[in-house]
């Protein structure tokens, strides 16, 4: 293989990665076919045409737009999360930022393109946006707590504690690993449920997302600035918050149940028929898990985003804590107490299991297995279905169909319809 050819092969392989998963076969096809072209300029021209085709297919405007938007958002998140001078746990923060961006960039290649529904596309964008906010916020807050003097911590908490990134505490590799595992789990579930291959219906996606966002909004109103005992709510004072706390608990356990039951009842097959109870159970569980995950992710992104903005911008801090009695130290202590990312991480880890459990129970109760009718032996247990419709008459008068399909070639895919009654396979969309 000449040097030119080797370079072109390398370029083509790199370009093939620009293509969506379903298109990469074509890249391989055009490259394999080059071996049949006479060597020399003709083969070079064939390869050049293939590289041009790959570049054009990979850089289509809409796809390119998505890539650019994601790259810009990921760069912004990584820049925000990147460790600043003076922090000792640089390696861990850099690792988290790079690994998260790589995870988000590569994950769609394993789960395929999004379903054509708006709900599917919205969920993917939502998941990515929330995880990037999570990444940026945890990096920024980690850097902030790393720069807080130890005396401030000792003043706020009676027991002395290690300060992340200082001499008493090393890099938090366990926290970084847990965060990446949680992010990978969320990406996998969201991309799987919204992929074109998924059997989850549009209605299920809408119901799960709707209940999840409702839960997320309620939780955010209850605890916009942290989930700890010292977390404050700048909008609701004293007992005003209690009804919303009750509502948040109800939605935590009841949201997945409601989403599950509604999804099981409303789901329909593409032809409008009522699906089997197993299908309804699967739809219900998917809706329940989606509700809890959407809720956890939305409140995590919204709250951590608010806390980050509060620390970064004085006007927001002033707006959130506008009490005339609040001292500078009081505000500072609010900031430090709000920077605890751990509770959100545990919430993201635990809520999906709550959703899975609640929706599994609800799905089993709401969709009982149908009883088998007691029919005499040999009666088949159901009305006879319509017989197969005769295939259309081909425009060439059946010239193609007379060819024995199984003897066409050594291919593994047989999708040409055989003539009715010929015993050859009919097209069934498989």
């Amino acid at each position, binding site marked *: 293989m000449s040097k030119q050819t080797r370079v072109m092969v390398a370029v083509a392989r790199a370009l093939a990665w620009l293509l969506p998963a379903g*298109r990469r*076969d*074509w890249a*391989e*096809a*055009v*490259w*394999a*076919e*080059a*071996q*049949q*072209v006479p060597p020399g300029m003709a083969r070079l*021209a*064939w*390869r*050049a*045409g*293939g590289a*041009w*085709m790959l570049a*054009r*297919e990979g850089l289509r405007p809409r796809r390119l737009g998505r890539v650019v938007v994601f790259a810009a958002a990921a760069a912004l998140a990584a820049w925000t999360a990147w460790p600043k001078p003076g922090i000792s746990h640089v390696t861990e923060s850099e690792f988290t930022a790079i690994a998260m961006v790589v995870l988000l960039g590569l994950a769609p290649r394993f789960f395929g393109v999004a379903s054509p529904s708006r709900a599917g596309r919205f969920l993917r964008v939502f998941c990515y946006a929330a995880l990037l906010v999570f990444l940026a916020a945890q990096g920024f807050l980690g850097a902030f707590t790393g720069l807080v003097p130890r005396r401030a911590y000792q003043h706020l908490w009676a027991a002395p504690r290690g300060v992340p990134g200082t001499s008493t505490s090393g890099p938090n590799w366990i926290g970084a690993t847990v965060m990446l595992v949680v992010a990978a789990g969320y990406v996998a579930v969201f991309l799987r449920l919204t992929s074109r291959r998924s059997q989850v219906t549009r209605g299920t996606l809408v119901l799960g997302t709707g209940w999840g966002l409702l839960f997320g909004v309620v939780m955010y109103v209850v605890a916009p600035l942290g989930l700890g005992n010292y977390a404050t709510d700048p909008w609701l004072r004293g007992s005003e918050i209690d009804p919303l706390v009750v509502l948040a608990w109800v939605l935590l356990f009841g949201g997945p149940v409601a989403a599950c039951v509604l999804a099981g009842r409303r789901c329909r097959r593409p032809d409008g028929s009522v699906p089997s109870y197993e299908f309804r159970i699967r739809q219900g569980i998917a809706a329940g898990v989606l509700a809890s995950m959407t809720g956890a992710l939305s409140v995590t992104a919204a709250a951590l985003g608010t806390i980050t903005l509060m620390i970064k911008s004085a006007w927001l801090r002033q707006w959130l804590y506008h009490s005339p009695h609040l001292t500078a130290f009081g505000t500072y202590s609010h900031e430090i107490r709000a920077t605890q990312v751990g509770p959100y991480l545990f919430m993201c880890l635990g809520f999906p299991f709550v959703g899975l459990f609640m929706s599994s129970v609800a799905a089993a109760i709401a969709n009982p297995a149908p009883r088998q009718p007691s029919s005499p032996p040999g009666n088949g247990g159901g009305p006879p279905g319509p017989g197969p419709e005769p295939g*259309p008459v*081909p*425009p*060439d008068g059946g*010239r*193609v169909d007379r*060819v024995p399909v199984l003897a*066409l*070639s*050594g*291919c*593994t*895919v047989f*999708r*040409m*319809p055989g003539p009715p009654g010929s015993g050859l396979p009919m*097209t069934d969309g498989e």
Partner: protein
Amino acid sequence: VASRPKFSAQTLSVLAALCDEPSQWQHGYALAKQTGLKSGTLYPILIRLADRGLVEACWQDEPQPGRPRRHLYRLTAAGLASATGALASAARPTATKAARTPAVRGTVVGLAP
């Protein structure tokens, strides 16, 4: 009346090549030779046709020794119907235009000073 899909001249040439032997699987290079299209034009056309379900593709099961497996193409039943219709309708206006041209030209010539 269902409107037939519009195809470009290059797509029509690919459809015509595939229509020659619709039951046979064909290779990309053979199609390129038949149509005179470069690989950078031919493959995007095949991709679009496959996306629309007019062409089906598969990998060769038994490749030649020392060579990679080849990608094979042929028309689906829907593709054959579309191609036949498109090729027929593409041929018709040409014939009509050819029939009209002398008369039109004659009129124009007759009007000229």
